[in-house]
Each structure stands twice: as C-alpha cells, then as structure tokens.
C-alpha cells in the first residue's frame, strides 16, 4: 500500500543510499507518518519494500523509542523530566498536563489528540522546561502556560496530521510570557530564557540525614530470599 501511495517518496529515499538496508529508518518514519503508528503490518511492509528479513526491521523499531508500535495521539507530547527541567518546574508541568488532559503518562487523551510521555534530556536546558510535540521543540513551557499551549496545538491538529507524528519536519517553538506559541526561526539569533528577577528565596529547611544503607545487612530482605 505504501508503495502505491508513496512510490515517488520511497524511490527518492531508497535512491539516496548505496544499500537498501540504509533506508530502513527513513522508510519507517514515512510509514509511521502515513499510518499514525507502526503496526506489525506496517513494519512487515517496510521489510518487504527493502527486501530485509522481517525480524531485522522489528529489531530497529524495538530499539528506537521514537517509533511507536501502538496507536498514539495526533500530538505526541514528550516532556523532559531530567534535572535542569525539574528544577524549573517539569514535574509541575507534567502534573498540569495530566490534569488538563485527564490522562497518565503513556496514555492518549479521550479525543485522540494528545499522548503524554516522559523523556530524558532534550538538550535544551537553557530554555527549560521544555517539551516536544511531534518533535517540534517547545521552549519555556512553565506549568501556567499549559492551557495556552494545548489550545494552540489543538488548533494546529490538521497541520500535525499532515506533517506526521515522526517529526521529520519538526520546527522550534517558544511560549511567550503572554502564553503565545511562537515559531523560532532556524536562523534566529540565540536567545536564552528570560527570567523575572526575584529576591533570594528563603533558605530551605534542612533535610533529615539519610538512613544508613548497608546492602546485604538489610535483615528483612534477607529473610525474603530463598538463599
């Protein structure tokens, strides 16, 4: 079916490489964009087009986390929960997204519009918190901007469907203080996140000292072991 609907694109992609095997990633992205996710049938189709052993293509899909082997929403939201983002409110952002969409991580909203995922560092710590929507970077997403962001994304659903979930044509966006989602041009000069300068925060309460962990001496777990 892909060959019938996208023959030209496939031929262009395959033509770029010396060996058909090299075209496996771009073709999988194409298949994922066309079908919304990679079903077993879609993976077999790619294997068939490239004359590769089916298992080999399944291996590739299984290895990379950006191939979705189950149906996902129109927008795949991948929120960084690594350390710098965390300091700047990633957990609060995720909570806000979950509340607003009424879903948990790895779930898709009832209207099929959004799927939420936690991911690790997206390499944009200077504009934290950051998330990807179908691999479009969205910078400076503080929890209070969630509603504005979701609304904006919803309004661009048709565009998202056209471009596909794989993010082959991904762009950069930033959320302004006013909650507007603005495209950041590729050649725009570097701009770090603008912070409001506040007074120094009150000193944190001292944490209680951690319990001493001594591995094998944990009596209760030793009891649980048949050894």
């Amino acid at each position: 079916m892909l060959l019938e609907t996208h023959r030209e694109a496939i031929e262009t992609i395959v033509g770029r490489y010396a060996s058909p095997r090299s075209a496996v990633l771009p073709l999988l992205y194409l298949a994922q964009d066309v079908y919304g996710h990679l079903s077993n049938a879609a993976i077999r189709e790619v294997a068939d087009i490239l004359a590769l052993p089916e298992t080999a293509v399944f291996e590739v899909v299984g290895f990379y986390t950006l191939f979705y082997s189950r149906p996902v929403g129109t927008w795949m939201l991948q929120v960084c929960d690594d350390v710098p983002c965390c300091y700047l409110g990633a957990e609060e952002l995720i909570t806000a997204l979950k509340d607003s969409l009424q879903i948990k991580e790895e779930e898709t909203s009832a209207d099929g519009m959004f799927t939420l995922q936690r991911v690790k560092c997206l390499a944009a710590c200077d504009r934290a918190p950051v998330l990807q929507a179908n691999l479009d970077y969205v910078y400076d997403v503080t929890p209070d901007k969630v509603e504005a962001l979701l609304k904006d994304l919803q309004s661009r659903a048709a565009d998202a469907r056209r471009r596909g979930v794989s993010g082959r044509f991904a762009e950069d966006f930033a959320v302004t203080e006013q909650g507007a989602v603005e495209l950041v041009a590729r050649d725009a000069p570097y701009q770090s996140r603008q912070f409001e300068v506040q007074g120094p925060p009150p000193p944190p309460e001292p944490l209680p000292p951690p319990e001493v962990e001594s591995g094998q001496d944990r009596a209760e777990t030793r009891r649980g072991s048949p050894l």
Partner: protein
Amino acid sequence: MADVTITVNGVTFRVPAGTNVVDAARIGGISIPVFCYHPRMKPVGMCRMCLVQVGTPRLDPATRQPMLGEDGRPVIAMMPKLQTGCTTPVSEGMVINTESDEVQFAQKGVLEFLLTSHPLDCPVCDKGGECPLQNLTMAWGPGNSRFDYNDKVHFEKPVHLGDLILLDRERCILCARCVRFQDELADDPVLGFDNRGRNWMIISKSDPPFDSKFSGNTTDICPVGALTSADFRFKARVWELSSKPVVCTLCPVGCNLSLDMRYDQLMRVMPRENGAVNDIWICDKGRFGHRFIEHESRLTTPLIRKGGHLVEASWDEALALVAEKLAAVQSSRGGSAIAGLASPRLSNEDLYLFQKLFREYFGSHNLDHMPGSAADVDYDEHGALMGVGKGTNLMEMGAESLVLVIGADPEEEAPLYVLRLRAMLERGAKLVVANMRPTKLDRSATTRLYYQPGSELAFVRGLLRAVFDRVGHERLHLKHSGLEQLRKTLSDLSVEQAAELCGVPAETIRAVAQALLEAKQGLIMYGAEARSAGAGMSESLGVLAALTGKVGKPGSGLIALLPGGNSRGALDMGVRPDARPGYAVLSQRGLGAREVWPALREGRVKAVWIAGLDPAAQLPAARAALEAADFVVVQELFLTATAKLADVVLPAASVAEREGTYTNAERRVQRSRQARQAHGEARPDWQIIQGVAQHLSELSVPVAVPTQRVEESSQPVGGKGKSKGPGKTTAVTVAEPSTWDYLTPSEIAAEIAERVPGYAGITYSALAATGQGGDWGRQTNEAIFYDGTNYENSEGIGIQLPNLIEGQKTAVSLGLRPLSKPAHERSLLLVSQSLAYDGDLLLRGSLLERQIPQPYVALSQTDADKLNIKPGDTVRLDSAAGELTLSARVVDDVPAGVALIPANLPNFSAAAVQTGPRTRVNLVKVVTG
C-alpha cells in the same frame, strides 16, 4: 600461517598466528571462561566474560624492534584496560594474564551482573546439569551476590519463538549465540533483539515464526536454559540420560546422532560430532523427527490374514507361512513370479540380504527400492561411479574449491548441506547454484543462475562444450571410451545454441566452465529436480567432472542427493532389477517396481515382498495390483495402507532397535548402534529375511543358481575369501550356497566387505575407528564452556568408499544420449518439489507433522494472470494420464511455465496425472456453483 610465541600466565608456547586469545590460551591448556564466544562463529565480545590482561612488547620507534629491559628481556607494555580475549588476536611476544586479581575481579563482576536477572531455577531447568552458566559460576563466580533477590526482574514466560523453540526471558543472558547462528551459519536471519536495556529480548518475526530448518541447534549452543525445545522441555534431567550413537536415516546426509535414552525411552536427539558429515549440527528433521520410534501405532507382533482379517500370530507361524507361500509360487511359476521391494531407509545389511535371498533362493531379479510410481527417476549410477573421491571432507575444503549445485534444493532434500556449503564459502570456496527456480541456497551463492524450465540438460551441454573448447580432453585421466562420439555430440551444439535453449547467457556459461576448470577441487551436487530430467543429466554431469579433471581425487566428484537415508546403499547392494551389488550390470534384467504392478495384475508375478515401502498409499495402480496378488508379505514399522493389503505383516525394528550400516550421499559408510530394546516382538529386517530363508531351507527348496552372468563392462564382483581381483574383467558367477546363520549384522557386513566392490575393508571393527573426526570436545575443559552442545564422537566416524572409477578398472563411457526435443502439447511442466517435511512415515508422532503442507499446486504470477487464477482457487490439471483437482497458490519463486506440486504428501497422490518424473499438463480454473 606462521606461528607466534605467546606467554600466558608465565607459560610460553607457540600458537598459529591469527588465533584469538581464548583459543590460543586453550591450546596451552589454560581456560578462559566464555559465554558469547563460540568457535564456530565470529567473536563479538558481548558477554565480557573473557576479559584478560594483555600486553605486547614495546617497540623502539626508530628501529621497530622490541625494546629490551635491564634483564635483557623485552619490555612489555600492558594495555591499560582488560581486553576481551575472544576479539583479540594474538601477536608475536604477547603476554596474557588470565588469573591476576584484576582479571578475577572482572570475572566475578561479570558473573554477578549476569546473575542479577537470572531466576536460579536450576532444579526445574532443562539445561541444569549441562549448563555453562552453572559451570562457570562454580569455577569463576563470586559465590555471593550484592543484589537483592527480591529485585530480580520477572517476565512472562515462556515465549513461543516458534512451534519448536521456547524462550525463557529471565534465563537469557543475551549472548546472541542463537541470533548469530541463524544469521551466520544457517542464513535464516529470523532471530533478533527487541527493545534495549533490561527489556532486551530475543524475538522472531518471520512468517511462520522461527522459520528455519536448523532451529534446534540454538538450544544446543544456548549457554543457559533460555532456549528449550518443545520436544524435550521438562522431560528429563540430563544426568539420567545415556547417549546411544545412531545414524540419521531421514535424508542422505547421514548425520551422526545421539539418541539420549532414559532406560528404554527416547528423551531427545542430539548431534554427535563428525567433522566429515555433520560437524556439530543436525537439522530439525533429525532432531525432532525420531518420535516414530516409540509411536503407539508401531507394529508389535506378526499378523496373518485369516478369514479376511489380519490377526496376531507367532513369528514361527508367520515366517513358515511366508516361506511356504513363496516356495509354492517358486515351484509352480518359477522365481520370476516373485518380486521384492525394499525401502531405501533400510540398512546395507538388510538390503544385501534381501537381494541375496531373491537372487540366490528364487533366482529372481525383480527387485527395486522405489515405489513404482510414474514419477520414479532413473537409478543413479554416476553418483557412485564418479562420486566424490575417498578422503573428501567438506570441513577441510575452502579456498580454491568450487561447488556446482544443480537442479537441487539442499535445504529440503538434505538440509545439513546448507550449513556445510556455507561453512565452505566462509573459508573462501565458490558456490555456483543453477536451478530452474530460486532456492534458499541462492542467497549464499557466489553465482546463481536460472535456466529455462526443462532445459538443464542443454545448460550442462553448454558447459561441456565450453570446457571442451578450452581444454579439450587434456584433463581426462580416466580410462574412457567414446571420446570421438563425445567430440561429435559436442560439436553439434555450440555454447551460443545451448545458451539460447537454456536461457543462460553464453558468457555466463563460459564463466562457470572457466571457474570449474580453475578450481583445484570441484564438487557437483545434483538433486531431485536434476534427476527428474533423466539419466542423461547425471551422465552429462559425470562427463563434466571427467573433462574438468574433477573426479577420482579428494574433494572432487559428484554428490547425488537421493531420497531416503540409504538410497546409495540400496544401489550399491543391487536392490534393483538390472544390476547386482556394485553396479554389476545384468544382461537379463528383472522387473522394476513400475513393471511389477502391471505384472501382478496380469498374473505374471504372483507374490510380492515389500520391506518398508508404502506404494499403496500413493499409487492406485499399486493398490489394485496388491489386491490382485496371490500373496503379499509386508515388513514394516506401521500398519500402512500397503500392510493393510498384505497376507502377512511382519513387524520390523526401527533404526533405534538394531545395528546396521548406512551409506550416505558422499558414500561414507557409517555404523549405527542399538539404542533400545526391541519394540514388542519387532525384529531387525535382516533377521526377518534370514528367518524366511531358514524356513525355506527347511522346506528344502533347492537354491536357484543364478543363470545371469555379470557383464564385462562393469566392475567384477570379487569371489569369497579374496580381495577384489585387480584388473579381473572376466565374468564371475556368484553362486555360493549360504547357510543363512548370521548371528550379528557384523557378519553380514563382513560378507558385504568381501563381495561388494568398493566395500572392501568396511567391517564393523574398522567402522569403530574415530580418526580425525573433528576437533570438538578435545580442548581443555571444553565441556565446561560448551556443555550441552555436542560431545566427542567415540563410536566411529565412518569410512568413505572409493568411487568406482578410482581403481581405474572401469572405463567411463563418454557417449551422451541426444538432447530430446521438449514436447509442448500441454502448456505447463508439472514438477514435484521434494520437501523436508513431507508424508514420510518416519515423521509420525513428531512436532514436525504440523508443518507438513496441505496439497497445492504453485504457479507463477504470469501463468496465474494468464489463466485468471487467484491464490486459493481450485484448479484442474489434466495430462495424458488423467486429471487432478487441487488448490492453487501463486508464488514468486515459481518460473513461468511450471506448475509445482509438493512430492510425497500424506493422503494425496499426483499419480492420476503423472506420466513420468515430469509431466506436461494443462490447467484450468474450476468454477463451482
């Protein structure tokens, strides 16, 4: 390659350059533990178990000479980190430490990590007792773990990788041995890894899953109990098993097997190493296809027809009846009214006695080892006459050798050859695969070509002409006749004309001919499809081997893939109407199976004795003939369709319940031992034959002295008590009254060694020699690392027969029969495809039964479009013989003009349409309703 000197743990010794550190240390008797490394596969360094300290002499930058220290010895620069021994090749002066604290720390660490996810369910694990992980943990493990037992990951299990192999994810240590075996050795890349990190797991996504004829081997090489077979899983503990050495009779490779028995029960089948036959592997047919031995439907007592029913009888009663009836037929109608058919799965001893009884007692040459179908092919003589030279070992062949596989699908006909040919390729051999349709071996071939359906003879003639044009007969070192005739035949057809007939470009034909001439060693392997083109094909291939000088020396000659485990033995033993043992042609031939059926109906033959064949299941003509026969005796494992028509049914012992020798495709005679007690009252075939003979002598039936004499054109049969008389070409008559008192099959083998040309010296004691069977199991502590795979072959590796041409006593006839013009009265060529998993009775009760396909006819897309046929449509085939209705498949691999049907399926026969090994048919879609 030159040797290099290395020092391991302070011991200095020499090893071949290019050896990796693991193998090199083992040469010096020092063990380095491994999991992922396997000597038959490329190293990958995945498991990190083989970490060692490695240092090399420091070189002076100016002189490139090793720098010497104050003590006058080379300064050793140790590598800053531990190295994986399996991926590090040795170099001159290398110093290796395998026991230092640092190495031990690393080994303990690796094992501690491997065991973090291991379930430690050894008490219920199939691998327990022969598990490298157990062994290595005992020897190199930490003894204690810092990981919390309750933190072990748990997965759903087992995962069915396929019908036969199951995966336990918790036990898997992710060494990829199985994946690499499938990719590198079997060329069935059907296994892979899904996910990553802790969730890494083996998957198989082929259709059907784990689609490989070699899948069972992955359970052997799995260093843990992660892969288990559905056939053996949870059946027995390995230390309860005793391994009995037998030979596989399911195909002409003749793999060495161990039947692992618990008392008298077959628990599993394992490969037994034989470098010259199966190395350390076996195919799934051999591994899983031996459940017939204990099948509940085995015959246990003799049966005699009384009042229309088969009723149980004693052996004495049954044998006396057989002798009486056959003697009666002989005295009233002569011995030629008796016919005998014996299966090519019987041992040489059985087959020899069978023909001996017929020829000596009955004076009858009505013998055959084929079922008598129209599709039976001509007897293959060139596979023996020009067979591979004595001393051929595929394991030792590589660079400078070429294999031409023509008209054969080794994966289906003799699966293990796929592994052996691929191993040769790995060592640098060339592989030319020529077929009318693609086969799996094409993927490995260095040259693959497809001739037009039915034009293989023209292709070979083209090759012959190209060879002749280049070297004439200068490489022909055999005694020969008919050179002028050959010259003339070849001059009639130019390479270009041949190219046009067969559709292979003339330059390709010339290139293949050139490659065959240039190769030092050349093997020509041909199979069912080549043989279905008639005897002209093997004859032409024989001449091709002769003209290119690829005959009569080790590593060169023909390999014929014949059906069954011992077709070559049946031919050698003369179980055929037109030749005595040793291809001694008879001037007056008897009736072959195909002629026996009409003769039975017409009353020219009155009695027939069928050993191990089931013609009635496939052939309506045979069924009618058996119904018309006066007396039918069948010796079989099961109550087959043929046995149901018999007057006397004699239960035969299976290969596991008796001793015997079998001759494989490379003419290697191998001895199989008894693995279990007799099944019920079943007796070995040779004992049954001898029993009848003894009863016949009690009836004082005079021994019929054969009147036929051995013709001069072939090799003479040696007289008793003499070795083969070299150069003796006069006719001999074999007429030695026998006492028929063989106590053991070894006595029969001794007689065969005396009487059958080529078999001189093939005695049971000689067959027990192990020689250089391979190198498996002979290295330091190897059992620890490769436990559960395969063990040293202590029971004999067999002896290869010299081909009949080697003695130079037989002149090769170079005359070729003319190319026949293909008839085109019907549009399609109906070809039977041999399948590994077919209706073979021996697959009864095995897991492979599920993989036997339903009958179908496969067509090319071109023909399907032309005839407006879609997959699944019902179609009718009609030929000169009759009609047949079948379901159609449309398959890419079938060339236009061919209709392919699987051969020998259960409950299906194409006999209605077949006019020969190949049949011209028309095909139409059946419109129902």
